C-alpha cells in the first residue's frame, strides 16, 4: 500500500511540470480546453501503431464484438449495465478528486441502489429514484480539471489513441479504481474469500467493457473507415473532440463547438 502511495506522489510531482495555475474558473477552463488540437509526439510511430491496431481489430476485436452482438439483447444490456455500474466506482473517485461532491453523491447513490435493488447492477432502478446517469470520469479528465494541458498526441499498441496527459491518467486510473485494488489485494482476498477476486477478474471486466463498446460502434466505425481520406487523422480528431467534451462535462452537444471557426465564411 505504501508503495502505491509513493508512486502516486511521484506521479503528482511529475505532473507539476505540466500544470498551469490551479483555481481557474469554469469559464477559463472551458476556453482553455476549447482548443481540440494537439501536436503529434512521433507521428511515424503512431501511424504504424494505428495500422497495427487496425489489423488487430479486423482479426480479433471486431469478430469478437460481432459474436457478442449475436447474444440476446437482454443479456447484452444487462452485461453493459453491470460493467457500467462497476466502472462508476472509478468515476466516483474522480468526482471526489475534482471536488464535485454533488455528482459524487449521485454516483455513490446510483452504485448502492443498482448493486442491491438492481441485482449487482444488471438493472438501473436508480433512475426511478431520481438519480440520473452522469458522464463517466477518469483520471485524465481530473488532471485536465486541475489545469494540466493535454500534451502531445500519440497512438499506443492495443490501447489506441491518447495524449501525454491521458497516458498518465491511464496509470492513475489503475490506482484509483477500487475494482483493481480489490482484485489485486491479497489482504482483501483473505477477508472476502480469495476465490472471487483474483487478478484476472479485473482484466475480464475491462475486456468485457471494451467488447461492449466495440459492439455498439461497429457500423459507425465501418462508415468512418469507408468515408475517410485519412482515417488516422479522422480518429485523432474524433478522439480529441470527445476528450474535450468529456473534460468540459458538456451535456449539450454543441457546447464545445466554436462559432468563430465559421466566422469568415459567407456564402449567402
Amino acid at each position, binding site marked *: 500500500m505504501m508503495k502505491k502511495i509513493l508512486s502516486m506522489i511521484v506521479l503528482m510531482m511529475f505532473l507539476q511540470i505540466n500544470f498551469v495555475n490551479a483555481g481557474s474558473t469554469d469559464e477559463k477552463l472551458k476556453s482553455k480546453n476549447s482548443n481540440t488540437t494537439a501536436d503529434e509526439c512521433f507521428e511515424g510511430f503512431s501511424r504504424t501503431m494505428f495500422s497495427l491496431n487496425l489489423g488487430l481489430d479486423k482479426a480479433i476485436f471486431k469478430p469478437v464484438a460481432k459474436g457478442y452482438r449475436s447474444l440476446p439483447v437482454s443479456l447484452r444490456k444487462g452485461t453493459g449495465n453491470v460493467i457500467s455500474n462497476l466502472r462508476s466506482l472509478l468515476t466516483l473517485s474522480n468526482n471526489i478528486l475534482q471536488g464535485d461532491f454533488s455528482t459524487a453523491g449521485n454516483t455513490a447513490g446510483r452504485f448502492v441502489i443498482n448493486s442491491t435493488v438492481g441485482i449487482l447492477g444488471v438493472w438501473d432502478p436508480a433512475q426511478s429514484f431520481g438519480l440520473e446517469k452522469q458522464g463517466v470520469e477518469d483520471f485524465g479528465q481530473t488532471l485536465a480539471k486541475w489545469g494540466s494541458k493535454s500534451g502531445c498526441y500519440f497512438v499506443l499498441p492495443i490501447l489506441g489513441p491518447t495524449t501525454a496527459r491521458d497516458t498518465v491518467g491511464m496509470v492513475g486510473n489503475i490506482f484509483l479504481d477500487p475494482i483493481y485494488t480489490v482484485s489485486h489485494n491479497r489482504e482483501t482476498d483473505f477477508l472476502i474469500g480469495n476465490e472471487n477476486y483474483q487478478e484476472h477478474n479485473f482484466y475480464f471486466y475491462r475486456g468485457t467493457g471494451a467488447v461492449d463498446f466495440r459492439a455498439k460502434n461497429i457500423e459507425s466505425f465501418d462508415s468512418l473507415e469507408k*468515408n475517410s481520406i485519412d482515417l488516422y487523422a479522422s480518429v485523432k480528431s474524433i478522439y480529441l473532440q470527445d476528450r474535450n467534451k468529456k473534460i468540459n462535462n458538456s451535456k449539450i*452537444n454543441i457546447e464545445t463547438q466554436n462559432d468563430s471557426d465559421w466566422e469568415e465564411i459567407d*456564402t449567402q
Partner: protein
Amino acid sequence: MKKNFFIFVFLFSLLYPQVSFSYNSDPKQFITEIVDEAKQILSGSNSKEFKTKNLSKMALKVVDIKGIAYYSIGKYRKQFTDDELKKYLELFEKYFLKSFTSRLSDYSDPKIDVLSAEVKNDKYTIVRSKLVGTDKKPEVKIDWRVYTKNPEQPLIRDLIIEGLSLARTQKEEFASVIESNDGDIKKLFTTLIEFVEN
C-alpha cells in the same frame, strides 16, 4: 391534353415528393422536413441507386456545400489560384455528395426525432434531434448547425454527432493530407479524385 398534364404532375409529385419539395424557412421545421424526406428516400424498398441519386439531389438543395468546402480547406484556401479554387469546389462537391450519400445509405428506415431549436445568433441556429436507438445501435444525439444568414433559405453547415463535429473532423483530415505531403495542396486534389473514382 392540358388536363392530362396536370394529372400527371399531380401524380408525379405524390409518387416522388422529394422532387418537388419546398422547404420551410423555420430552422426546426426545415430540419423536420429534411428528416422526413430522407426517411422516404431511405425506405427499405428503394434501391441503392435510387437512394444515392435522391439523397444527392436533396443535399444540393439543403446543404451549404460551398461553405463547408471553404471551411474544410481552412488556411490553405489562400494558396489557391482562381482556377485551383474553381477546381477544388467542383471536386469537393463530388467528394461531399459521395461521402454524404454513402454515410446515409447504410441506414434504412431511420427514426429521427427533431426536439428543439436554439438561435445562436443571426447567422446560426442549432437544431437538436436524436436518432432513436435500436437493438443493435444505441441512441445518438444529432445537432444540426443551420446557416440562417438568408432567413428565407436556411442551409445545413454541420452535423454534430454526440458532440463531435463532422465538418471539423473533415477539416482536420484535409489538413493532415496536405501537411503529411509537405504542404502540397495538389496531393489533396489527387486524394479527393481517388476517393470519388473508387
